[in-house]
């Protein structure tokens, strides 16, 4: 029995025998479809690399990201320092590597705060309609109309600079989009018979929203979050650039670019190396998110 578990045939079986088999089978089909998309795989590779680099930073970084040798300041890329050194003699590559942790921290925290919040508000709004919808969407619109960076600035100005406040500020401006998407998605099936059927079974509104509505909104939300990651990284970098995000000496990529601005003409590597890192990671999320969107397109809703 154990021999054929997790074999291709078992996963693709038309007649799963357990819940577990059915769920794994669904997951496997999605994964295979995703693997047929080479660009999505490139994106996934980049994301995985980001995760690994962040996790293994202490072992990967050749030097300390915080301590520098002033004798060595502003050295160009060489065998000893692959990305050169910055104005305080710190190894840029080590800083970029440790900066991955900060980037990941910000991106994940924003996603974890903003996405569920937006999803819930959107699903509830779309499901109930009427005045609930109007009130919630008005609130959403208010937040949606605020320019992200400016609101973040205001927030940080009020609460003081720092990574945590930057995260909160970005999250506050990001959730409205997910609310809108979830609401639009909910409206497409709000009048479908399976919702009426669930009501006929006696399901409470909470149960219907949690078990029937949200699962159908999940795909589009996941795709949007993935695609948004790039924007979040850039916003965080922007805040860092303005000195409002991570504070020195933390190796946040945006802050590093800001510091390197002064030397951009003669010591281009100080600003450009972290810049490359941002571009590559953003690209990775975009490519993967695109591939996810192609794969998660709900075929189940079209008539066969």
């Amino acid at each position, binding site marked *: 029995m154990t021999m054929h578990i997790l074999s291709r045939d078992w996963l693709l079986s*038309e*007649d799963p025998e357990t819940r577990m088999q*059915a769920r794994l089978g669904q997951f496997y089909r999605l994964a295979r479809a995703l693997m047929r998309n080479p660009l999505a795989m490139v994106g996934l590779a980049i994301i995985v690399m980001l995760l690994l680099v962040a996790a293994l930073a202490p072992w990967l970084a050749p030097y300390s990201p915080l301590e520098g040798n002033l004798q060595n300041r502003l050295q160009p890329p060489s065998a000893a320092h692959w990305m050169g050194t910055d104005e305080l003699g710190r190894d840029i590559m080590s800083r970029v590597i440790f900066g991955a942790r900060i980037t990941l921290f910000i991106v994940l925290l924003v996603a974890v705060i903003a996405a569920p919040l937006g999803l819930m508000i959107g699903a509830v709004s779309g499901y109930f309609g009427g005045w609930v919808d109007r009130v919630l969407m008005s609130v959403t619109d208010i937040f949606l109309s605020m320019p992200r960076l400016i609101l973040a600035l205001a927030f940080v100005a009020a609460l003081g600079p720092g990574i945590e406040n930057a995260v909160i500020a970005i999250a506050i401006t990001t959730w409205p989009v997910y609310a809108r998407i979830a609401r639009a998605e909910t409206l497409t099936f709000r009048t479908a018979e399976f919702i009426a059927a669930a009501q*006929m079974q*006696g*399901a409470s509104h909470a149960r219907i929203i949690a*078990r029937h509505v949200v699962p*159908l909104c999940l795909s589009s939300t996941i795709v949007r979050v993935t695609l948004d990651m790039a924007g979040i990284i850039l916003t965080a970098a922007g805040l860092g650039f303005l000195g409002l995000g991570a504070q020195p000496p933390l190796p946040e990529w945006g802050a590093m670019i800001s510091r390197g601005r002064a030397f951009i003409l003669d010591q281009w590597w100080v600003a450009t190396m972290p810049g490359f890192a941002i571009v590559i990671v953003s690209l990775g999320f975009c490519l993967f998110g695109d591939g996810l969107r192609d794969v998660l397109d709900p075929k*189940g809703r079209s008539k*066969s």
Partner: protein
Amino acid sequence: MIDIQNLTVTYGGTPVVQGVSFQVGAGESFALVGESGSGKSTILKAIAGQAPHWTGVIAIGGQPLQRRRDAAFLRRVQMVFQDPYGSLHPRRTVDDTLSEPLVIHRLKDRDARVLAMLDAVGLSRRFRFRLPHQLSGGQRQRVAIARALMLEPEVLLLDEPTSALDVSVQAEILNLLADLRAERKLTYLMVTHDLPIVSFLCDRLGVLRLGRLEETAEAASLRRAQLSSAYGQELVARSGAEG
């Protein structure tokens, strides 16, 4: 079993059903026939609690219904919807769909009940963890019927149960409905536009036109193509012409 008196249903101020009265005895099978727009589906929805603005009396087993439907009602009256493609949640397996009413009403022995119901509606047990898109139209409708029967109701409301199915599959589902009714002594209130189905599955029928009940008749009269109202005869004639 079902007693409707002077039912009027309005949608946005316009009356869609006007002053309709009829009774369905326990164990009887009653059909509401008429064209689209006649209000027949609306009557079902009103009984099921999905039409907010209605006046009149709807009584099930002698108990008049209120604005809201409670758990006791739902364990007495259930509904089978028309579209097998739309009435099952696309991301939930057959098992999920059938277990849900049991979970909501806190009933035990879920596994046993689900398996028993799959057998009762003629679905192979190997379909238990399939998703709707892996099932044919007829199979999906069987799941919908199974779902309606999970709470062991006495009354089934059927909204055009076979009209979205291929002709080759309709007979199976009609037979199933006939068998289930006999086995479980169910009362059927069925909405359909297809008169021959009424001849096969029902004892009596009511003819609706633009929200009003034109006549009620025995199925025997329908079989002899002898309905008493002019409109009823028109429907009969049209039914023959299409076929």
